[in-house]
């Protein structure tokens, strides 16, 4: 569906000088995560660059993606945006047939890109490393809702590479702070089951976990409910999730120490701006790390007020080391399942 107000692309002939940007979502909006963030980026493109925009949800039936890419590429859009490792192959194939148009893949781990495709990837592992450090520091601390056990938690939507990229960074970050730390890991097996997310979180909290990292989409919203019920902490993902809840449920929001953010929205805006000015270096992949302002943790009011200042300083220190590459974080992308399992088991409580 069209969430922007743009009419159909084909009818825009008379204003042909206007920039036309289309975003194809391989799924549905409302994930509070990278689809929504990408959509937000598109909205910024519209408002800040005055482009004609349109977002299309392609749904979860993967057989429909390829025809949609082809259909859309054939229309008169200047820039076609989509994202994900999953779609990279077919996205590239489509792009090759339309060398005059610019294609932006806002989140992929695959490096190869045709000449007219701009690939971006985010240092998920690094930002998760930082989140893990925050969690480890919190569980050791004397913060009001922290206990004496050095156990932190992780809730993933599914046991898949995209999720495990967060997990591995998170574990390494936590271990960096406390090599003896334990990390409870659960997967809900589902991205739309917040009740299950809550149950799994409650089990973790009850077993001594005091911070859980949410990497489970809609399911993860159950973590915050559990955190409120048990008065424990949580860490959000993708966007600043405390901000989501600040107005409607401040009590809950105050338990979200920070969020590991992929700045897909600004990355899209920047890329489109560059493309408009003809400065986008296509044909390669750009890794968006701390330096590129592609990732970061939410340093909002809650972080500043709830998370002790001395610990904030430690986090800042670690962040610097990550930026300088003094710390190297493993990347779960490309790891075999067995390697990931070994990492998980090494910190199992």
């Amino acid at each position, binding site marked *: 569906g069209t969430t922007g107000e743009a009419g159909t692309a084909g009818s825009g002939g008379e204003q042909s000088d206007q920039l036309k940007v289309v975003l194809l979502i391989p799924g549905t909006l409302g994930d509070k995560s990278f689809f929504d963030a990408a959509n937000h980026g598109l909205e910024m493109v519209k408002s800040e660059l005055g482009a004609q925009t349109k977002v299309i*949800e392609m*749904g979860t039936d*993967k057989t429909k993606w390829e*025809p949609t890419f082809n259909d859309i590429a054939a229309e008169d859009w200047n820039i076609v945006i989509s994202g994900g490792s999953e779609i990279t192959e077919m996205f590239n194939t489509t792009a090759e047939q339309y060398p005059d148009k610019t294609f932006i893949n806002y989140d992929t781990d*695959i490096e190869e890109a045709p000449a007219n495709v701009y690939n971006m990837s985010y240092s998920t592992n690094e930002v998760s490393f930082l989140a893990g450090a925050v969690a480890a520091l919190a569980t050791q601390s004397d913060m009001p809702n922290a206990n004496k056990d050095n156990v932190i938690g992780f809730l993933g939507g599914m046991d898949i*590479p*995209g999720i495990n990229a967060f997990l591995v960074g998170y574990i390494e970050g936590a271990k960096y702070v406390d090599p003896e730390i334990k990390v409870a890991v659960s997967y809900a*097996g589902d991205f739309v089951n917040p009740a299950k997310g809550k149950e799994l979180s409650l089990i973790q909290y009850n077993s001594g976990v005091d911070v859980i990292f949410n990497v489970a989409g809609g399911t993860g919203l159950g973590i915050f409910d559990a955190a409120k019920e048990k008065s424990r902490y949580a860490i959000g993902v993708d966007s600043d999730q405390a901000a989501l809840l600040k107005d409607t449920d401040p009590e809950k929001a105050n338990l979200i120490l920070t969020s590991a953010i992929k700045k897909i929205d600004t990355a899209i805006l920047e890329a489109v701006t560059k493309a408009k000015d003809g400065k986008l270096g296509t044909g390669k992949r750009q890794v968006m790390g701390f330096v590129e302002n592609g990732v970061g943790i939410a340093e909002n009011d809650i972080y500043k007020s709830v998370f002790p200042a001395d610990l904030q300083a430690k986090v800042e220190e670690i962040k610097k080391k990550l930026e300088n590459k003094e710390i190297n974080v493993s990347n779960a992308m490309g790891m075999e*399942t067995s390697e990931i399992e070994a990492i998980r088991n090494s910190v199992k409580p």
Partner: protein
Amino acid sequence: MMRLKYFEVYRTAAVILISLAIAFIIISLVSSQPVETIRIFLFEPLSTLSRMGNVVEMAIPLMFTGLSVSLLFKTNMFNLGAEGIFYISGIVAAVLAIHLSMNGIIHPIVAIGAGSIVGALLSAIPGYLKAKWNANELVTSLMFNSIFFGIGLYLLNYHLRDAKAFSNVSYKFAETAQLAKILPGTRLHTGLIIVLVLIVAAHYFMYHTKWGYELRMTGANRDFAGYSGMKTAKVIILVHLIAGFIAGMGGSVEVLGMYNRFQWTALPGYGLDGALVAMLAKNNPLSVIGAALFLAYIRIGADLMARLSDVPSEMISIIQAVIILLISAEQFLKFWKNRMLLKEAKLHE
């Protein structure tokens, strides 16, 4: 009786018109150009060859599962297990498509054959439980859907996942395993021929063979079939085997026809859709073709509507629901039939 004979045709036509009118009204509420929108819904699927191809492509798996379910329903087995079978057989076919090397004709036959046989055997479990212990097939089939999904996902993640693809997808299938395309400009593959042959065979089986006869009689009245000397327990197991074989073949064909890697991380939903198709087809094999095409057509139409107009994609399911509710409404327009009946009766007086 001439006019009465065509009553069903009139009724269906009228119902479709009325549901379209209702769809139009709903669309008018949210669309600024309802006429254009409904035009897209109705005619855009026919606008290009590739879109017509999309309709048929989508109908292929629906025909498989629709046929499978209609055989079960015809035997009065309320079994919704096609969903899980479709999935797990897809996995089986994928394993063989990845690991075997054979020539381009035998390879798909072996992979699909294995998927179908596994489907048949797995489907026989609820069948056996029903025939032998009278265990409710609805419950067992629903449970097995979740079990097969879990097992399939485990196999995908732990044994088939291509770490280099950076998402939860399997290794690429061997080229030789993939089904050949049969119409340039579309993705139509040989699966279409397979399913059409299968449908005709099933029709023949059902209405022209001893076994089909036993199956129909067991479904119509199991006591009667037993009284007549049929071994109804065997018939029930047999129909489960056949239905599982067909659903399994559907899963295998879909995987090898439409994808080059296995990549379902959720149940694809064709099993439940198959129940829908079977119902619309009144459990008649030949009618499955029409019912599947109909469903695929309105889905593709609705997708295009969501993509090309300002109607959000969620509208699709609302409009589909309205059409399904009305199309099977036997009493809808009943008064009309009653009037015709009375006239006929008078005529014969």
